[in-house]
């Protein structure tokens, strides 16, 4: 089994992830309409359409650069709170592996750990606030633990995807503490946070890409 994720597999993950976000436009809009103002799905659709276009024909080998392009595209096109949050996620992940053309599990964990820390710093949300942090933090912790235990990448990605799913699911019973949803108070209970769902989709696509790309080519 492969011990690293190379440039091509990560680029194909980012393309798959962009596609998944575009396909789930209406689903994300629905979630946002319940607690926010209902423009999340559309803004993410437009942002990830640009992401797709910007990396579709990209012919490089620097994983750091690849993630930074994705992040900067989101930051410069999405706006609202989602633009900075998801922009920072990919920019920081990219910075952690600048110049590398493949990443180990340890490096993958560092990418998302740095991203998590920067998002926390910028947005001020913590676990339990009903934001993407509720899915991202457990996924990052899963990657770090797996890396310490010297698990293989496939096992780590499976645990991370499951942790993100459980984390996102947990937002259903939480009271929103951030953003425009905050004003709903108790009424926000019963709805999933759309940002956390995007993180669930991200780790799901990372796993699926690994399965189809790396296992097949092994």
């Amino acid at each position: 089994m492969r011990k690293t994720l190379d440039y091509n597999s990560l680029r194909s993950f980012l393309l798959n992830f962009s596609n998944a976000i575009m396909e789930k436009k209406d689903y994300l809009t629905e979630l946002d309409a319940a607690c926010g103002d209902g423009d999340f799905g559309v803004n993410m659709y437009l942002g990830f359409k640009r992401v797709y276009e910007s990396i579709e024909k990209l012919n490089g080998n620097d994983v750091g650069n690849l993630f930074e392009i994705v992040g900067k595209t989101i930051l410069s096109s999405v706006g609202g709170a989602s633009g900075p949050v998801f922009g920072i996620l990919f920019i920081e992940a990219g910075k952690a592996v600048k110049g590398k053309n493949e990443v180990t599990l340890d490096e993958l964990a560092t990418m998302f750990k740095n991203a998590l820390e920067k998002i926390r710093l910028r947005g001020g949300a913590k676990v339990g606030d009903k934001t993407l942090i509720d899915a991202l933090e457990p996924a990052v912790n899963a990657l770090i633990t797996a890396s310490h235990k010297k698990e293989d990448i496939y096992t780590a990605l499976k645990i991370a995807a499951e942790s993100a799913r459980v984390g996102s699911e947990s937002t259903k019973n939480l009271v929103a503490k951030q953003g425009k949803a905050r004003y709903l108070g108790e009424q926000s209970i019963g709805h999933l946070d759309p940002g956390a769902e995007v993180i669930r989709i991200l780790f799901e696509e990372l796993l699926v890409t690994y399965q189809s790309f790396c296992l097949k080519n092994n």
Partner: protein
Amino acid sequence: MKKLINDPFKVTVECIEGYVKAYPDLIKPIGTHVVVRGEAPIKDKVAVVIGGGSGHEPLFLGWVGYGMADAAVLGEVFAAPPPQFIVEATKAVNGGKGVVYIYGNYAGDRMNFDIAAEMMEGEGVKVESIRVWDDVASAPPERIQERRGLAGDLFVIKIAGAKAEEKASLVDVKRVAEKARDNCRTYAVGLSPPTIPASGKPTFTLGEDEMYLGIGAHGEKGVKIIKMLSADETAEILVNELIKELNLKEGDEVNVIINGYGSTTLMELYIVNRKVHQILSGLGIAIHRTEVGNFLTSQEMAGCSISLLKLDGELKMLYDAPAYTPTYRLCSIHR
């Protein structure tokens, strides 16, 4: 919802295109999401950059000009503008004396303006940020920094703009802007919801006989849904809360904004204003200046907000200073 638009994804850009055509003598566009004063950049003047999501016109867009802002940056409807538009605006108006960002206190605006400020600081431009948090309905007083920005934006932008026009220092412009922010409060009521063009759905639903007390400027949930009240009863609830919040007493002096949210008529707003004046006068609180009209709208939302600014000599003088922008004009008067 019927809207006279073309492509719902292009409403912001097309709105700005049409807007700049109406005032070629006063403003010019920079790219697609920024408008600046015709004479920008003005040397040795603190530049005032304001902005946020579009869909609130004339807020932001309409207040670029003499005595107010040097630039307005718009995001898509109800969504904060990305940092590079803010950077574009900052560069276009920076006159070498520093820049002040003034915007409503929303998570998206905070993050995008902070990122832009860091980028500009990296290029050696001094930036100060003032977040307007006047909405009493959005958090208790002890957590005032979590409150949303509403029509109090007008007070803060007007006063900061007047100070900047005097060629005051960045420190002084920031100081008066914060003083205005800390002395103003707003309370709103919604009668029917706004619709974001791109989503096409109203942001909340309300019965014919109901009103939403403490509604947000994007149709975010308010304090509570109550039975529809008369203009006088509504004014009483709103203004009494503001009096309490600002601890107003006999002999104090205030400026008033009666703001319409989009589809509430001026007739209704004047009726509300009538009662607000009766209440304040009855308590011996002097009203220096009253603004009635659509300042911060929320698409076709019906409803209004009442804002009070507690005055001192400095705030009063700065508010009375002349301003000349596409949608806000004031002749100089010193009483």
